[in-house]
């Protein structure tokens, strides 16, 4: 018999952090149980992406905290016979590295009965900035869809998965909505959704900086009189596009660090 691979769920750190339910298993069920998040997602495996916020190499395992726009994930890469490659990859990470991680969730309850969830990485991939943006947007999109499904399910007298599927939701979204209503009646979904807007703001800020970088590069190229483009010319051109001087400074620093431009003399810039 072919065992179906457990699908890796894309969820934001806040959804995982607010998770408080472990699905009950019947005695004949094998393997780890699912955890069920406030959005109703049944999770055993996740695909997450973000920036390494801290790393701590211990004797048998390496602890990593990974930041996404809503907080942090906690990763534990153990040195077992089956995961030495992953432990090595975790050890080689530096704070600030962008990575995507596929891993299994490992829930445990504290003495106070609070559920804590760490992630045991199975694969760690170095991620480009575009990967992080893609993951942020897709995860946001998927989460929003689940929220709409929950709202739709709330309009019904009792959970009705089929009726949501008929409306155009996927069977999984409809099932998530039913789970959320079953296990998280008192969860503040509104507050959760408001926190998602910060993801949008972060992404918009990143898009804005990208467009300013392009503008700065273009102006330096056009207005380089041989001695380099003047800083004032850049600020003027940016102001016409509604960018602040502080944003120009940020873009210049950024382009300088990435090796795209250099300051040829005081406040004069050239393209490399």
């Amino acid at each position, binding site marked *: 018999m072919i065992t179906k*691979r457990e*699908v*890796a*769920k*894309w969820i934001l750190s806040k959804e995982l952090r607010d998770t408080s339910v472990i699905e009950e298993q019947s005695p004949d069920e094998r393997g780890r149980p699912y955890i069920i998040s406030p959005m109703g997602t049944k999770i055993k495996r996740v*695909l997450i*992406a973000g920036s390494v916020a801290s790393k701590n190499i211990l004797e048998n395992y390496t602890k990593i905290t990974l930041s996404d726009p809503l907080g942090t994930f906690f990763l534990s890469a153990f040195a077992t016979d089956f995961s030495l490659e992953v432990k090595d990859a975790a050890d080689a990470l530096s704070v600030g590295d962008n*990575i*995507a991680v*596929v891993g299994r969730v490992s829930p445990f309850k504290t003495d106070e009965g609070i559920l804590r969830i760490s992630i045991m990485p199975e*694969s760690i*991939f*170095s*991620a*480009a900035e*575009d*990967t992080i*943006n*893609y*993951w942020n*947007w*897709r*995860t946001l*999109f*998927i989460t929003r*869809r689940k929220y*709409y499904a929950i709202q739709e399910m709330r309009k019904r007298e009792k959970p009705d998965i089929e009726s949501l599927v008929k*409306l*155009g*939701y*996927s069977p*999984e979204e409809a099932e998530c909505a039913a789970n959320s209503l079953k296990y998280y009646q008192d969860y503040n979904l509104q507050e959760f959704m408001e926190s998602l807007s910060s993801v949008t703001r972060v992404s918009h800020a990143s898009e804005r900086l*990208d467009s300013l970088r392009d503008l700065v590069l273009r102006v330096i190229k056009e207005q380089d009189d041989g001695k380099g483009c003047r800083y004032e010319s850049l600020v003027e051109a940016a102001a016409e596009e509604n960018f602040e001087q502080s944003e120009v400074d940020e873009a210049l620093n950024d382009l300088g660090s990435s090796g795209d431009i250099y300051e040829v003399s005081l406040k004069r810039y050239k393209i490399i």
Partner: protein
Amino acid sequence: MILKIEEINGETTDIDLVVKVTSLKKRESQNSTGASSIFYYGIVGDETGSIPFTAWQFPQSIREGDIVHLSHCYTRTFRDSLRLYVDSRSEVVLVPDEDIEVKRTYRNSTIRDIKPGDLFVTVEGLIEDPIEKTYEKDGVSKKVLYFTLRDETGSIRVSSFGKSVMANQVVRIVGAKVSEYRGRKRLTIFENTQVIPISREIRKEAPLYDISELSNPIDSVGISGLIVNLSDKSGLMSRCKTCRKKVIDIKCPEHPDDGIFYDLFASFVISDGTGEINATAGASSLGPILGITQENLDPETSTLTKMEVFTRLKSTLTGKPLYLVGDVVRTDDRVNFRAREILIMNKEKLAEVLKKAEEGYEI
């Protein structure tokens, strides 16, 4: 009471019909204990429509074209379409000297919504890449035309027997037969199928799908995602120059003197957050992004090693947002994706894909 086919309303029991047997086939099946049994299947129709049927018992004297009175039958949904069942409680009585003008019912369908359970469909699309071939039947040389039909939801391969078409023409095909061959949906056009040129704009662009939407075979569709798992079987492989089969040793066991060539192959699981799908890719899609040309794949001159190609694949494809165009194919009970084009998304493509995905939902 004798019903007309159009009066059959969903799954129901104890149906009486007077119908014409428009197609009749016999098949032998084996149950789990190995015991074999014969059943009959085909299509019956009347003036109001047609319906597929399965008969566990059927009189041997009945032939295609006969009119029969079927009583105490029932209907069930099988592979997404309603089917009539004739069992041991049913009666099948020949009605001699009668004829019925059978109405063929063709469901209007997009290419995406064509189901293997459909008998005939009406579908519109743009004709691409027609190729004519000849074949022999009963000693007579006949022509068949193969082409791709594309609409906004994907594309499908079509075989046309007796109808000619032109490349880049948009047509409505009324009464094309649906089948599934090697995990891919196909349409067949016969003499009595109508192919009508129509005025309609169809863009030659692969539609973007969420992975969770891909439950049936369809060609020429786009997906985006991140690789979750890259199989270590991926990389460089040797193939026989004659049969193109994978060669594990230095020589093909069937064609040891014919030589080998190198090929690129990747097998991976890709996820877009809505689901995961197993995907494969070959040299035509991997070569451009790995910077490996046909000349690099000549065993006489190539310096490539398996490890080097696998490492290059891993560093190029994993951790990157990918856009894939290819075909969804059914293998056993699940669908797989065969990538024909792989693109690492830049900012512009990323913005386009994310926008399209959000627009795709009409809620």
